[in-house]
């Protein structure tokens, strides 16, 4: 099962991606008193991107806490809280800063359950916004999901729509493992429909955002809407693109991706993160070492960020990451 009713027969309402995140957190905090949120400026300020606006008013300063500027402390605190019975959500203001907490995240939180022989559980979520496009330059615009995918013990989630964001965050909060939940800066203001009633999107299940028979495009995060736009353009030339959004990078829904490539025989992997050692390489290897290999009628292509720091100049900032033109050209090349 790969396609979920994003727009089911039931009633939906449009909310922004940011609001979807907020709703997920709020609903889980209402549902489970062990859930709490902390990070820099999440309380009084309402979050650097306004995601947690109104929450401190509803849940009070014990459950919505402002922290000092120390990512290691924030994540370490989350790990400890989780270990001792709470279900914390730690917000890191820019995903770029998460590397400051790598020891707490990767050596401690990620490893504790294993190293304590299963006796410990670390049910925590670390949320952080990724991505370029806001002109925030090299240290505030990166996409580094590959780092966290590389640490066993962590789950990594990258939602691309308000629907996915809300459903996946709830699932992440309910998950007993440390989950790195990477939001997309430039999508915060984007609206999308969500069902009226409560729902959860399970982790580890990809979503086929658009069906097609000629080329598979595997993509996540902010690149998903860009790929969908390119697919619409290509449709006019009779090229039918299938867009597969893994949604969860670890654990990866290999089956959906492989099935799609078997069908189309061609695949382009698109991600904003830098190409070298990007997660696209992992997916490419998964495809190449699967049944889908024997259906490939063209090499596996990646369209990803160039191996450069994100520039400050707006034109260069756009050009440093995939553009619709690059994606379109890659697809056409495979069909040449």
């Amino acid at each position, binding site marked *: 099962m790969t396609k979920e009713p994003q727009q089911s027969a039931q009633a939906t309402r449009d909310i922004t991606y940011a609001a979807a995140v907020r709703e997920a957190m709020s609903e889980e905090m209402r549902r489970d008193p062990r859930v709490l949120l902390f990070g820099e400026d999440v309380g009084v300020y309402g979050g650097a991107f306004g995601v947690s606006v109104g929450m401190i008013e509803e849940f009070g300063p014990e459950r919505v806490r402002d922290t000092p500027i120390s990512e290691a402390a924030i994540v370490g605190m989350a790990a400890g809280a989780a270990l001792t019975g709470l279900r914390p959500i730690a917000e890191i203001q820019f995903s770029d800063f998460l590397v400051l907490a790598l020891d707490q995240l990767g050596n401690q939180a990620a490893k504790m359950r294993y190293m304590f022989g299963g006796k410990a559980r670390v049910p925590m979520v670390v949320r952080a916004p990724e991505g370029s496009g806001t002109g925030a330059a090299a240290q505030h615009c990166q996409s580094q999901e590959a780092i966290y995918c590389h640490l066993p013990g962590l789950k990594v989630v990258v939602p691309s729509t308000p629907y996915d964001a809300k459903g996946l965050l709830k699932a992440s909060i309910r998950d007993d493992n440390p989950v790195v939940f990477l939001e997309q800066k430039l999508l915060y203001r984007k609206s999308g429909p969500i069902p009226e009633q409560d729902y959860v999107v399970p982790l580890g299940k990809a979503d086929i955002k658009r069906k097609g028979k000629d080329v598979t495009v595997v993509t996540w995060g902010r690149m998903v809407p860009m790929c969908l736009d390119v697919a619409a353009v290509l449709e006019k030339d009779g090229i039918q693109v299938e867009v597969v959004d893994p949604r969860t990078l670890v654990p990866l829904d290999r089956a959906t991706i492989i099935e799609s490539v078997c069908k189309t025989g061609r695949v382009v992997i698109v991600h904003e993160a830098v190409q070298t050692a990007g997660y696209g390489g992992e997916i490419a290897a998964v495809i190449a070492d699967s049944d889908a290999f024997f259906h490939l*009628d063209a090499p596996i292509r990646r369209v990803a960020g160039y191996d450069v720091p994100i520039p400050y100049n707006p034109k260069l900032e756009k050009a440093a990451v995939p553009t619709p033109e690059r994606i379109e050209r890659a697809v056409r090349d495979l069909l040449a």
Partner: protein
Amino acid sequence: MATAVIMPKAGMSMETGTVVRWLKKVGDQVTSGEPLLEITTDKVDMEVEAEASGILLCILKDHGEEVPVTEPIGYLGTLAEMGKSSAELASSSASRPGPASAPALVAEPVPAAAAGGGQIPSAAPGSVRSTPAARRLAGELQVDLAQVSPTGPNGEVRLRDVTAAAQKARVRASPLARRVAELEGKELAGVAGSGPGGRILRADLGQPAPVPPLFSPAEVRTPVSGKRKVIAERLSQSKFTAPHYYLRVAVEVDNLLAARAAVGAAGPKPSLNAFLLKYAAEAIKRHPTLNTAWEGDAIVSHPTIDIGLAVAQQDGLITPVVRDCGSKGVLAIEAELKPLVEKALSGKLLPAEYSGATFTISNLGSFGVDEFTAIINPPGSAILAVGAIRKEPVVDADGAVAVRSRMRLTLSCDHRVIDGAVGGRFLRFLADVIEDPSRLLL
């Protein structure tokens, strides 16, 4: 590090190419993608683009030289490398074989977007470059990849190539026809086969046989018979000596057809041609110039109106003549005409019966010809060509559109004897009386 410019393999069967001319001189700056030289293969002239940027260091093969594919014909590099020998350049070059130049390579992962530096390792000779999907399908369909023409951008066999090859194989064609089609780049699908069971043979591809036939009865095709010679001579003479001009008119024949039907109701129905002979005779009576012949120093006027009707035989053409049509009615004309035509068809006309027509009518209407121009039949000075009767929309006297039966007449006249106005008046009169026979009473 210099980059070799090689003779590209621009087609599966291409073994060599010939340099036509270089578009850049030694020492010129070259940008990747720029046309560098022109070559010609046995099929086509084409431009070769530079695979890398750099300075053209040297030209190894020049105008008119034939080079095996993939052999270096020049080098691109930096200014510092200028002056190096081609051997030095060859050893230092990171020549990236062009996309279509490596038939023996296996599809190994190509380093993406490598700027002119990566060496594609070649696999064991004899293996065909193909995508995994293509190989799978080839295995399923029992297609030999080595026989498949690749269309992939890197010279690899793609899925569609295997499908096409399998499809081609299903077409019934002789091995020679297949080989020739492949060499000439022709498609077998859609060719009508003339061999047993609809098999496509070489001849069906429109290719000439390499060996001209030893003897070709085609040279002896239907030797000119006596009759054919005569027709040829006479009509040539007529056409080439008499200055022909042509007048056309479209005639409404409803009244003519009604008249014919009326006569037919009362007895044997005369042929349409008999009517035409009668009308023509009446028209000639009033325009006697049409009954004359040019004899060089005199114009001879014939005493009687003898009209010939062109009859098509199996192997020729003959015009039985009805004498003195001016004095005969339609029925009398028909009575004479009918047996003459029968004799004409069976080749039994006597010379007296087919010579001396002063005016000839040729009717190709029954062959479905709408209109045509005929060649004057000597000794006459004019011939009337009659076309088929067709229902057409016409604008009638009231300006309304009606459907009438019309027939086109084309009169060929010998301008030495019949001037334009004379011919025109005759034809107009003829057309008028056909349309309204009562005019003959005038």
